């Protein structure tokens, strides 16, 4: 990571360090950073006018908390169970069975996150038909905004509150280059709004063909209690933790409720 602290750079470059090659010793750099941090803290408290601490605004604390919880939630869902190798003296068969079992378990755990494009269209349709037939599944039509990526876009979002799962169907949404930007789903939740929270991240996806239908499973990063709006935005590659909502392309609201 580049150092932009001029003070630190200057001291490190001109100090009588034992390393004569001129390269920066990372341990020494870190110690100097720590020293300056301590000094900074003492300077802050030096001219104390009162003992009162100025807290960060509640709304900002909520934003930061949401981001942190989402990061840990993602980290937990990405955990891989390590498979330990046994010694050669043992039979390989029990080991192979154990490996196969772990892989199968991992596949089952990760299955909802797999984009359905690897299945045949008939299988996808059957999956959606079964999903839609659930009494707890609602279907909402996408409403395109005036964003140029959404001019010809249409489709629907299917959401099952009980299972916290869903699917999005798109046609006509502009093809994206994933290294330039990606689409990201947001689920607006009334219970989070009440706590000044932010919408729940529903996952990042790409559109490779706008002429044929694309089906994307919804991957909500947090629990959704009272969803009232689904929105698709355009974000940087990899998505964001909190969207600035500068490019909203599609919205799905209860007013457009369709019988599923």
């Amino acid at each position, binding site marked *: *990571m580049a150092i*932009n*602290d*001029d*003070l630190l750079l*200057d*001291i490190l470059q*001109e*100090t009588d360090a034992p390393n004569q090659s001129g390269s920066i010793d990372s341990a020494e750099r870190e*110690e*100097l*950073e*720590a*020293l*300056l*941090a*301590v*000094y*900074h*803290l*003492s*300077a*802050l*408290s*030096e*001219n*104390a*006018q*009162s*003992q*009162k*601490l*100025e*807290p*960060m605004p509640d709304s*900002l*604390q909520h*934003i*930061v*908390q949401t*981001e*942190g*919880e989402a*990061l*840990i*939630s993602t*980290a*937990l869902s990405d955990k891989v169970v390590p498979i330990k190798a046994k010694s050669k003296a043992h039979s390989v068969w029990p080991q192979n069975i154990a490996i196969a079992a772990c892989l199968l378990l991992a596949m089952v755990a990760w299955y909802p996150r797999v984009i359905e494009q690897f299945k045949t269209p008939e299988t996808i349709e059957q999956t959606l038909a079964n999903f839609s037939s659930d009494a707890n599944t609602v279907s909402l039509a996408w409403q395109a905004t005036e964003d140029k990526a959404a001019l010809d876009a249409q489709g629907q979002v299917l959401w099952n509150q009980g299972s916290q799962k869903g699917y999005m169907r798109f046609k006509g949404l502009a093809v994206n280059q994933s290294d330039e930007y990606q689409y990201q789903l947001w689920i607006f939740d009334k219970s989070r709004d009440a706590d000044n929270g932010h919408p729940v991240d529903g996952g990042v996806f790409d559109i490779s063909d706008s002429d044929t239908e694309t089906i994307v499973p919804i991957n909500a990063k947090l629990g959704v209690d009272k969803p009232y709006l689904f929105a698709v935005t355009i974000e940087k590659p990899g998505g964001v*933790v*909190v969207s600035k909502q500068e490019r909203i392309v599609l919205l799905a609201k209860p007013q457009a409720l369709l019988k599923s």
Partner: protein
Amino acid sequence: MNTATTILQRIASDDQSAIKACIKQYNGLIWSIIRNAGFYNGEAEDLVQNIFIEIWKSADRFDPNIRSETVFITMITRRRMIDFLRKKMTEQNRLEFREELPSVPAYTNDSLADAFDVQSLRDNMQILSDDEQQVLKLSTVLGLSQSEIADKTGLPLGTVKSHMRRGVQKLQKLMQSPQILKEGL
């Protein structure tokens, strides 16, 4: 050395409840640092989000045997703040922040007192000359570069560099004093 699990260690072990605890414990510290550097409104909020994201991602590098949590978080805050200053702000904007270092609502916090004896540190700060203290504060608190400090104070650049170097060397000696440190940096 305290062997209780720290907030950052809990975050590193994916304990979601530690997120709220971390914010509750350190929101005032981080907010005070960036507000003292002159950040407000949208920029302050952007910066705070960047800082906390780095805290979450760096939690697994925290070792309580090396330094206190307060200092670790302050280091991250300063790094992000200085990066932000260098990249986003023009030189003129930064110099216009303050005519002098502000007397702002104090940062006083139990966790700071746990890290080292603040009062002793303040008392011994007089080993630094007024010039050394001034240039160090302009650099560490406001994030001004040495050339900017030279412009602001009227001191030659070489003199600014000398004051900073001597000031840091004195601080290093001071910080090794057992009267100052309770748990180390």
